[in-house]
């Protein structure tokens, strides 16, 4: 396409977007004072914005169309960046120093001068989402089951702790495994009938199920205390030590670090195990997978139950961290947020999910102007990632096996 045709097309697109955004973006009616607010400036922004974006969009679409077989032979354009990222993650010599610096920073962070209670809280929050993201990653990223009701299991964990404490005075450490167990049982009960369904139906059933859970929590006053929720949930204790708010925050921060490490350890072991391979095969081709002797129901159910377990764990920590739970914390948007972490980071990639969580949770916190637009951004990320980079920021890498004979053979060849 020549430059003139490109400009003309972008102009048409710009005009089109100025047209379709007109009523919503330009006009605002104040129904109480009966005045109309005209925001013509928005129209100009939309025009310029869509004009410019259409060039970028087209450029990337074309590149995608050309680079369809890019994976076979890395294109020269990406040759510099791609192998580096992969090498960084594959070679201990390269990633070890990086990890050491990272863990030193992680340990020192709460004691650094700028780390106020507020700052630590934000980072703890991000860690919580890493855990949720990694849990959902088992279901969506590894097993390929689009789960839109993840938040329901998060809620089960949180309410388990809240109610166990309220009725029986059970503390955090006992509630942690119980909450996880409840979530897992809940997951199996739901999973058993619905996992036979095709992917898109599964998505909508899990979504519907999460809404049912939330609505029940909101309306069943006798059980869950309705929309007002349950307050006064204790923070986790440490051998009965007295802690002030700041110390308590630091304690939860380290607790979260430990839980995240535990999660990473488990997910990493799972994904290169017999079960983990079965999940990935299931994601890749369900018919072939079953024909190779894998029971798809069992494989899906384990993925579902394990994902739910992690949501339950995270839920208990959430209740302990905020000392308060109510149904408003468990809306569909929460599920969508966790899903976009997985989608952005890279389905099936642990490092990807961690990076995704940090970007999506910390960025809106630190760029205040941004936080209003966070959900808008999440929606956009899902669309853009699916179109241009469905594998996410970091591609999940498969385990490499070494055989002496292979090495020998290759040695001979050279």
């Amino acid at each position, binding site marked *: 396409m020549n430059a003139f045709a490109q400009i003309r097309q972008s102009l048409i697109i710009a005009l089109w977007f100025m047209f379709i955004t007109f009523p919503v973006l330009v006009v605002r009616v104040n129904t109480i004072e009966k005045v109309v607010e005209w925001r013509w400036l928005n129209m100009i922004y939309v025009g310029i914005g869509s004009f410019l974006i259409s060039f970028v969009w087209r450029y990337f679409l074309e590149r995608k169309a050309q680079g369809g077989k890019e994976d076979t032979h890395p294109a020269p354009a990406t040759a510099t960046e791609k192998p580096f990222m992969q090498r960084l993650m594959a070679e201990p010599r390269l990633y070890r120093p990086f990890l050491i610096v990272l863990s030193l920073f992680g340990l020192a962070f709460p004691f650094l001068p700028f780390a106020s209670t507020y700052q630590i809280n934000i980072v703890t929050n991000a860690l919580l989402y890493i855990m949720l993201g990694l849990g959902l990653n088992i279901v969506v990223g590894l097993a390929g089951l689009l789960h839109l009701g993840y938040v329901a299991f998060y809620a089960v964990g949180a309410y388990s702790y809240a109610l166990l404490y309220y009725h029986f005075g059970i503390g955090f450490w006992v509630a942690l495994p119980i909450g996880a167990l409840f979530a897992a049982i809940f997951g199996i009960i739901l999973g058993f009938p619905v996992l036979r369904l095709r992917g898109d139906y599964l998505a909508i059933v899990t979504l519907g199920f999460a809404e049912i859970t939330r609505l029940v929590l909101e309306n069943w006053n006798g059980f869950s205390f309705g929309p007002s929720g349950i307050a006064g949930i204790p923070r986790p204790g440490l051998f009965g030590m007295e802690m002030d708010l700041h110390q308590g925050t630091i304690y939860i921060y380290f607790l979260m670090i430990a839980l995240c490490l535990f999660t990473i350890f488990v997910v990493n072991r799972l994904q290169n195990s017999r079960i983990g391979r*079965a999940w990935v095969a299931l994601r890749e081709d369900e018919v072939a997978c079953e*024909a190779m002797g894998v029971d798809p129901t069992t494989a899906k159910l384990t993925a579902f139950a394990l994902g739910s377990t992690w949501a339950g764990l995270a839920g208990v920590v959430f209740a302990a961290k905020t000392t308060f739970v109510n149904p408003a914390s468990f809306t569909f948007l929460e599920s969508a947020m966790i899903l976009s972490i997985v989608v952005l980071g890279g389905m099936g990639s642990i490092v990807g999910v961690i990076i995704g969580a940090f970007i999506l949770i910390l960025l809106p916190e630190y760029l205040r102007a941004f936080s209003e637009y966070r959900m808008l951004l999440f929606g956009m990320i899902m669309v853009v990632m699916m179109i241009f980079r469905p594998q996410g920021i970091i591609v999940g890498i498969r385990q490499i096996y070494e055989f002496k004979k292979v090495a020998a*053979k290759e040695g001979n060849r050279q």
Partner: protein
Amino acid sequence: MMEPLLDVKELTMDFGGLRALDKVSLQVLPGEIVALIGPNGAGKTTFFNCITGIYKPTGGNVFVTPPGKKQRRISGMKTHRVTAQGMARTFQNIRLFPEMTVLENVMIGRHCRSRAGVLGAIFRDRATRREEKDIVDKSYAILEKMGLAGEVNELAKNLPYGAQRRLEIARAMATTPFLLLLDEPAAGMNPRETDVLEELIRRICTEENIAVLMIEHDMRIVMSISSRIYVLDYGKMIASGTAPEILANPVVIKAYLGEEDVDVPAS
């Protein structure tokens, strides 16, 4: 007479009002390479799908007799259970796990012959480690036999076409079957690749003692390799016999070419 490994009796499959298979019977004996041929749309792949449990047949029975074991009815069994019985298949349009490595593709085949669960995966106890090593070793050995040992860590989607076909067979072999079902293994191959494949199938049959039932359009390989041939047309089994018998059978000739003379290259 030897007990047949696979004994299909009057298998019938209806899709709505359409009868795709009409009382089809077929047997595979130990050590045999049996070919199932027929014009396009005759119901060959439907037959495979019915006996492997992907479709639920409307009528008839399917029995298998694993070597040294009792006869078992497998019609109505779920696909993965059928595979566990010892009958593994490949697909007409290659269905590998594209984002997994070549080795991992084969390792999936070992799934039904191993048992490590979630706890084993997390704790990696000794039994799990041993089992995992066994899976890797066995899978690698199969890849070596199939001439794919050089590509173990390559992603399956990056393999050339012929190698993908061989990988599918390797994956099926990893389930340690006594009967291998191959759905058009030579499709899309050039004559040289077909020769390699033919040799491979022969070796599988003789060295590994695995019987083979294959759907194939390439008459050259069918005629030279098969112990017996079945011919399916419009869902009905119209003929069976050895290669010369089939070539001389007027019903078969008619099904393939109408009234005209048949021109099938005999080997």
